[in-house]
């Protein structure tokens, strides 16, 4: 009835990696719930009237393109790492980090443009929601940038070697980074839909 199964140490490590990958997805589901509930609050509040209409700064849109590009670059870096092209891997990883920082700076200038237009955090909730949603995204981006920095630090300080453990860590960073991109595209789609 019970067949003996051959287990190696690698098997049980792989199982734990699988579990942790799964845990990240669950965490993402939780974060998504925050944005989902804010979305519903946003839509319901807009439908209630007394709503200030304004056009979002273009930088919000350019940032979406930048986010998508950064995801592609990080994916390429991961592919390079798996093919043991370590130089390319490090260059692309650093490039992603730069693009992430550029996104954040762009975001800051977008907020400043909103303020110049007379849209403040305070006042009509239509402006407040934009600041809160983009701010919350930026907060998540800081987490992403931190993990990218750790990844880059390790890429530069550890010997060039492809191990299961490093691949696993890279995958977690990659998944989270794609999630951040998805989130921004989602927010842009929401704003375009509501405009």
């Amino acid at each position, binding site marked *: 009835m019970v067949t003996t199964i051959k287990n190696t140490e690698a098997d049980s490590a792989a199982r734990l990696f699988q579990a*942790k990958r799964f845990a990240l997805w*669950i965490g993402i589901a*939780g974060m998504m719930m*925050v944005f989902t509930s*804010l979305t519903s609050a946003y839509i319901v509040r807009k439908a209630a009237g007394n709503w200030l209409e304004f056009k979002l700064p273009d930088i919000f849109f350019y940032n979406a393109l930048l986010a998508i590009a950064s995801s592609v670059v990080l994916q390429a870096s991961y592919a390079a790492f798996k093919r043991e092209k370590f130089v390319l891997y490090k260059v692309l990883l650093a490039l992603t980090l730069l693009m992430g920082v550029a996104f954040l700076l762009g975001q800051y200038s977008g907020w400043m443009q909103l303020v110049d237009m007379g849209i403040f955090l*305070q006042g009509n909730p239509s402006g407040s929601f934009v600041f*809160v949603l983009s701010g919350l995204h930026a907060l998540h981006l800081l987490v992403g940038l931190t993990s990218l920095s750790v990844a880059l630090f390790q890429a530069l300080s550890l010997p060039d070697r492809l191990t299961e453990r490093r691949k696993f860590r890279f995958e977690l960073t990659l998944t989270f980074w794609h999630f951040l991109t998805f989130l921004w595209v989602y927010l842009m789609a929401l704003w375009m839909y509501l405009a």
Partner: protein
Amino acid sequence: MATTTQEVSKHQIDQLIEEYGYDDHFHEHHHEGDKYQSGFIQKYIFSQDHKIIARQFLITGMIWGILGGLMSLIFRLQLGFPEGNMAWLKPLLGKWIIVNDGIGTLDPEFYYALVTIHGTVIVFFVLTAGLSGTFSNLLIPLQIGARDMASPFLNMLSYWFFFLASVVMFVSLFLSTGPFAGGWVAYPPLSALPEASSGSGAGMTLWLISLVLFVVSVLLGGINYITTVLNLRTKGMNMWRLPLTIWSFFITAIIGLLSFPVLAAGFFLLMFDRLLGTSFYLNEIFINGHALDRVGGSPILYQHLFWFLGHPEVYIIILPAMGLVSEVMSTHARKPIFGYKAMVYSIASIGFLSFLVWAHHMYVAGINPFIANFFIVFTLIIAVPSAVKVFNWITTIYGSSYRFNAASMFAVGFVSMFISGGLTGIFLGNAVLDIPLHDTYFVVAHFHVVMGVAAFFGMFAGIYHWFPKMFGRFMDETLGKLHFWGTLIGAYAVFIPMHYLGMAGVARRYYKFDNFDAFSHFAGINKFITIAAIITFVFQLIFVINFFYSIWKGRKMTSRNPWGSTTLEWTTPIHAGHGNWPGKLPAVQRWPYDYSKNGRDFIPQIEPQSDAEKDEFH
């Protein structure tokens, strides 16, 4: 203690594990010193071992339970004896007791603070962290046959975020302006404007910080529970062989994961309103005769976000209790749980429906009556899976030779409470009846019985039953039974009269009723309730003494499986180290409820099925 000849001996357990078990080479990893077990700090304080973390959750929860209970006694004194002299409480409460001519009275502001903090800590710190934090941590790895949680580190963080939340909440009790006093639901504007009341300032700020830390704790824990159940089950443990405890913790964690972030979002907007001058929840407010310039928001929006968590939260509290009760009952009835699959489906459907009923807390908040109809229908549908569970519990013990001990009696008490409280839920689920009853003691009685006392009963059943697993000793049975009878009778004595008060129209949230002649003849009932509450609290102290005494002095466990249970946690050594099983992981061969089968008292999950047997579900 059914130590019959049929009991599987310690030697046989080890043999079964050795023969069929699953070697994951766990113990080969730690050659020089186990990092989880070396040194006092790693072992007992910043521990990553789920068994220690479970005890940390339990003891922290118990401390909050005592504090929360004491708070209720103070405001019950005010309600039962509004003219009484409270000067004797001055050494404890300081300026919150105002002494005039030698007569001390409780500051009304502090009365509201006590009610608020009582609700907050019992709901979140005791019945969420203390209940599902304790038992999910203890039982998930042990009952599914895992070495530990998927991420022991996040698990440790989960406890320490809870600890921080506790510290912040505790500090808020000592603020000169008092803790938050706007109710545990923290509705704006009282929660959104620091100038709204004295507790709305620093008290509310600390309350919010504490709850945000708590949400982080719940999410870290929940992510771990879900991941562990889905990924780290031992060989042979398919989902239909999980004990009902695990099913309930699993669904509870999913509910928490989907609802607590919504609370976080609601709190996030609340913080902006408080600190940065936005108007998400505020509209045309006057304070001290001055109009504020905050317009365009809606306080109802907060209520929606709050209750989208708030209602699932009551199932986050009650489902783990249900799981514990199912397991305890089946074990002590020596019968399989009746309708295992129906139990699982009803847990899942309660979980699903819990997201569709939140606005039944808002019938009096001015929501559209048409929308209210939708919520009435779904609320009443929840009665169906709940009734399925109740019938299955009753059928499980029906005709059994039920072993009466503290654990199993609390399990029966749970069902009694759940029925009593559930029935009044059917009244309140209807908007037409809820509107006159909502702001009365009827609601207070309803939710205390159905999710407060009932969940405590489930928790007590779990503590008495798994205490030997946690500490290797038994709690005292006589004191346990005394605790049971005192709590059962005491809790009914407190809450049955409250239903009557509510139907007579006595409003909740009032500091005293002496301005309302209509309510003056209820003074006697209020006195009775207060006295009953004090007595019931004294019985809880018996439990606390029994608990701590038994940790060090209780009767020692001599066999691994004192209750004759089928589940995996009883196959570990009495004092299981890190990794739970010293050698291989046990493999699971059958479902967890093979009691009184084929002429045997019980068959453990690790014993292979004979050729004639197959997985069967009743």
